């Protein structure tokens, strides 16, 4: 991170475009990372509806929960941009507050994701055989198989793991690699937060260090915007093969 100041003399003053090397690097990297997520999303979509057994998105997704975690991640982006604005204004205190809040929100998002993964892996099916309501296709299948006469309800564990079916495989690897990106971001921001306590570590002149971390962080956020719509909302939309 110290590269910025040190290279100011050499690079920034003499670059062809007048732009900073590291910032160009960051944008090229983000363009490249688009292809990374595109491949994962394409894999997910190509296999959508091709799973041979459940559980399916409709069985495990809880849109309200994911809406909250999406909200948390969006807020972390706002918090990040406020941290950067505070730094530009020279308020180190504001910077620390906002960057810490970004770290907390990011960690909260990761907490949600862990919770979600755990819930999916321990998905539990309960069917009232006498009076079945609102069964998903998968549950209907279980109903047909298990609700023979005399049985009044069916209870069993049907966890979703990366091994369970194609949905599990593509879902966990896509969101897991997104989560890995978030984790790296949290570590990066945490490092900046700690570094800000070192004298001269984080200063308005060296705002670029934070600018780059922020770009990365927002990018992770926009990828989630896509995942939320494509994987979650479209995932439970009945019009598509589920």
């Amino acid at each position, binding site marked *: *991170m*110290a*590269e910025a*100041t*040190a*290279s100011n*003399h*050499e*690079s920034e003053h*003499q*670059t*062809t*475009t007048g*732009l900073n*090397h590291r910032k*160009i*690097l960051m944008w*090229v*990297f983000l*363009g*490249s*990372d688009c*292809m*990374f997520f*595109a*491949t*994962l999303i394409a*894999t997910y979509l*190509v*296999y959508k509806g*091709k*799973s*041979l057994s459940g559980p399916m998105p409709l069985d495990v997704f809880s849109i309200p929960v994911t809406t909250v975690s999406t909200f948390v991640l969006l807020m972390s982006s706002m918090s990040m941009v406020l941290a950067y604005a505070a730094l530009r204004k020279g308020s180190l205190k504001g910077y620390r507050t906002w960057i810490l809040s970004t770290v907390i929100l990011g960690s909260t998002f990761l907490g949600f994701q862990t919770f979600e993964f755990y819930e999916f892996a321990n998905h539990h099916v309960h069917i009232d055989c006498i009076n079945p309501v609102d069964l998903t296709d998968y549950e209907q299948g279980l109903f047909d198989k298990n609700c023979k006469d005399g049985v009044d309800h069916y209870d069993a564990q049907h966890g979703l793991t*990366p*091994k369970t*079916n*194609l949905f*599990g*495989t*593509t879902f*966990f*690897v896509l969101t897991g*690699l997104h989560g890995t990106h978030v984790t790296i971001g949290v570590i990066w921001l945490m*490092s900046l937060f700690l570094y800000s306590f070192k004298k001269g570590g984080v200063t308005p002149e060296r705002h670029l260090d934070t600018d780059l971390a922020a770009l990365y962080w927002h990018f992770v956020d926009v990828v989630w915007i896509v995942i939320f719509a494509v994987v979650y909302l479209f995932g439970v939309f009945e019009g598509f093969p589920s």
Partner: protein
Amino acid sequence: MTTLLIPMIKRPLHPTGIWNWITTIDHKKIGLLYGATAFINFLIGGIEAILIRAQLSGSNADIITPEVYNQLFTMHGTTMIFLAIMPLSAAFFNYLIPLQIGARDVAFPRLNAFSYWVFLAGTIILHSSWLFGSAPNSGWFSYAPLTSVAYNPGHGMDFWIVGLQVLGIASLAASFNFIVTIINMRAPGMTLMRMPLFTWMTFITAILLVLAFPVITVALIELMFDRSFGTNFFFAPAGADPVLWQHLFWVFGHPEVYILILPAMGIVSEILPTFSKKPLFGYSTVILAGAIIAFMGWLVWSHHMFTVGLGPIPNSVFTITTMAIAIPTGIKIFNWIFTMWKGSITFSTPMLYAIGFIVTFTIGGISGVMHAMSSSDAQQQDTYFVVAHFHYVLFGGAMMGIFGGLYYWFPKFSGRMFSEKLGKVQFFLLFIGQNITFFPMHFVGMDGMPRRIYTYSGEMGWTALNALETSGSILVVISVLLFLHNIVKSWRSGEEAPGDPWDARTLEWSISSPPPEYNFEVIPEVHTVDEWWARKRGLLGEQSPSVGSNEKGEIHLPQPSFWPLVSAIGIFIGGYGLIYSYPVAIVGLVIMMVGVYSWSFEPVNDPD
């Protein structure tokens, strides 16, 4: 953590001997390291090729077992593409780009060192699979489901996956670096349309690379998860479609072939004008054609999958796009020919290579258009005809271009002249040998000889041509040895080279051979394409030839560093960890983190 480490490990400010190379971040030294390592890989890949040819030299031969044969052709292809041609191109990028754009180094010198060390790590990981008893054996494109644990137990595929993943990190890091360098480090006055052609092709290659490699990265991750954690990406019993692997591989794979050829095209576009004493014909057209090729390279990938059964519509679409891509390729070929037209040509060794490149590459392009037609490709797919095609474009194209470049810039790299006589003999041996090796493959291929079979029956009538091919490959071996002899001997005791032995055109020739550590005493100011030529010929009129901003006294060069190497060692250990034991992978990760952190907090320059 790092505040503790940095004082503990002192920065190597003035390293000597071998440490000078280990900690270097000078783009020229890194270029030489890249070149030497990649050429050794080229020799290893060559040994593998010779074993393949020996086995095929007669019918029903059993010089090597079928299992080893599979490993040989897999490692040969993987080595030549990822460990030889790509890094040889990278050697040129490293050495030449800063010189051609009038800069003192690349934008991120330590990242550059990191690229090299990670490339070396990937090289060792891949080759070491031989020592661990199981080299990968599923071909350089490793189609699913042949790569699943069920059909491919043992660690061969894991070596392949991890090796390519590590090499991908190296290539990506290098490409990010060169994109920024070319955008942002050009000398004053060097607009994009005054950049040397080689710089342009490097720029386009790097952009292709950063967009194509993420695709194979993800495909490899998916394959690794299938093998290691039992996921279902390519597992048909769970409903998966193994054809997805083919798509992902070729979405990457076709841009990859342009990553292999564009640098060679750049090299040839530098050699031809120099030895024809004429500017490149249609400078901007050649650039535009390169850009169009790079763009269209994304639209053709399924031509590798014509016989999979994608259906008539995809096959037709990809037939049309593939045929169309021959147009910009043809434009380039005509531009090169017109460059020589009415020029005063010197037939020196690099020039012979450039001309040889045009000839053999064109033949490869023509066979390419032949199987661009999906219906005729049904006859050619997976036969020796395809092997002939890609050897014409890769050996006759990319490698010939690289050989030409090695000769052309040898005086600049070494400060010595090579033996022109030996060079010419070597060229003709290589040119003839390569054509004897690969041309008959068209015929046996059309006659139905499948690729990747380890032997064939004498009744097929392929024996004579195969024997001929093997004899051609011996000529190639002799000529490569001759090349090595020439280079080693000339480097030791060749005649001293002036700064500009060829009366060339671009900025790297305006400084001494080999260049001083800081490259340019005074950063040049650029007024036109072929700036150096224009200055020599006094075409710039009254203008003062160079207006420098920096006096020699205050040149600040970035200083050597350990951390790129430490980070790369972490990746190296982590790589073996992924293959054999996850705790070791974590150790690697920690070492890498220590390297990256220390690197981040280490200033580019410490006061002496």
